[in-house]
C-alpha cells in the first residue's frame, strides 16, 4: 500500500507542474496584435493652444505608457490620430527616458473646447491602423 501511496503522491506532485498555462490566455496584449484585447494603450497628456505666424493651432499630446509598449522597444511607434472633424494624421511616437512613448497631433484651431482623440497603431504592411481607442480632453 505504501508503494501505491508514494505513486499517488508522486503523480499529484508532477501533475502540479503540468497545469493549464494562464500566460497563453493573456498573450493578446501586444499593441501590434490585430486581436488586441487589452485596455486603451494611450493617454491624452495635454491639449493646448499655440500661435505660429498669426495662426492659432491646437496641440493634442499623448503618451503610450511603458507598460503598453513592447519589451523590445522600437525607436518609434507610428500612430494614426483622428481628432474631432479634423483630417487624420500620422505621428511617430518617440521613446522617452522612462520607456514610455510620447507624441502629438496639431490642428488649426477651430474654436472647439473639447477634443476627442481616436488613435490607432499604424501598420505599414496593412496600410491601416489597428487597436483604435478614443479619449477626450478639454482645452
Amino acid at each position, binding site marked *: *500500500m505504501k*508503494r*501505491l501511496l508514494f*505513486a*499517488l503522491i508522486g*503523480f499529484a506532485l*508532477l*501533475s502540479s*507542474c*503540468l497545469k*493549464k*498555462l494562464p*500566460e*497563453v490566455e*493573456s*498573450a493578446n*496584449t*501586444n499593441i*501590434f*496584435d*490585430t486581436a488586441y484585447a487589452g485596455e486603451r494603450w494611450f493617454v491624452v497628456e495635454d491639449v493646448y493652444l499655440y500661435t505660429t505666424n498669426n495662426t492659432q493651432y491646437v496641440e493634442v499630446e499623448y503618451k503610450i505608457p511603458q507598460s503598453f509598449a*513592447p*519589451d*523590445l*522597444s*522600437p525607436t518609434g511607434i507610428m500612430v494614426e490620430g483622428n481628432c474631432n472633424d479634423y483630417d487624420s494624421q500620422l505621428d511617430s511616437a518617440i521613446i522617452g527616458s522612462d520607456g514610455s512613448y510620447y507624441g502629438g497631433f496639431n490642428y488649426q484651431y477651430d474654436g472647439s473646447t473639447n477634443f476627442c482623440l481616436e488613435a490607432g497603431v499604424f*501598420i505599414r*504592411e*496593412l496600410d491601416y491602423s489597428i487597436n483604435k481607442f478614443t479619449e477626450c480632453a478639454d482645452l
Partner: protein
Amino acid sequence: MHLRKTFFAFLSFLSISAFSQGNTGTVKFLVEVDNGYFEILIDDTLYLKNYKTTLEAGQHSAKVWSPGYITTEVSFEIKANETVEQFVEMAISNERQVYEKEYSAYRMKFHKSLTIPGSVTLATAITSGTFMILAYDRKIQTLKDVDLYHAAPNLEQVELHKSRIAINNSKYNRYRAGYYITGGLSILSLATTIYTYTKFKKNNIEPTLNSESPFKDRFSWSVSPVSFGLTYRIG
C-alpha cells in the same frame, strides 16, 4: 535398528589414485538427465558425484539417482586398463510429473497475478513519463514564445510568435492529457498489481520437488580445519 559401521573411506584424490593402480579399469557414466546433476552409488559402497571413476576389474553394479528421476540400477563389467562407457537411461518419476504440472499452473497464476499487471504498470508508467517530459518541454517552449510575443515590436513578429504559441500550447495540452490518462492508468495498474499479487501470495504456495538423495542417509561429510572425511553407514 541399523547396524552402523563407520569408517573414513578415503581422502578425495588419494583414494582414487589408489584404485587406479594394478588390475583396474575406468568407467564413464553417460547419464541422460536434463538437470546436469546425478549421484552414483557403486556396489553399494562407492559414492560418486562425478561421471568417472576407476574400479577393479570385474562385474560391478551402480545405482544412479538424479532429482526428479527414478533411481536406476545398471550392471557393467570393468576390464583391466580399459575404459567402459556406461549409458544410463533415466526415467522421469511420477512425483516430478506431478510437480511439473503443479509448477506450470503455479507459474501461470504468477504471470496472471504479477507479470502481466506489472508489465502493464511499467508500460503505462514509462508512457506517462514520456508524456510528462514532452509536455514539460512544450511548456517551456510555450512560455518562451509568450515572452517573445510580449517583446515583439511589430506585427510580423507578433503573428509569428502567436502561431508558435498556438502550436506549442496545443501540443502541450495533448501531452498533458496523455500524461494524465496514462498516469491514471499507471496508478490503477499498480493498484491492480498489488492487489492481485497479494492475493496470489496469500492463496498459493510454490510447489517444490523433493530432491533429497536416497543415498543421503548413508553418507555424511565431516569437515574440520585439518581434515575431512566421508562416513558411510551400512544397513
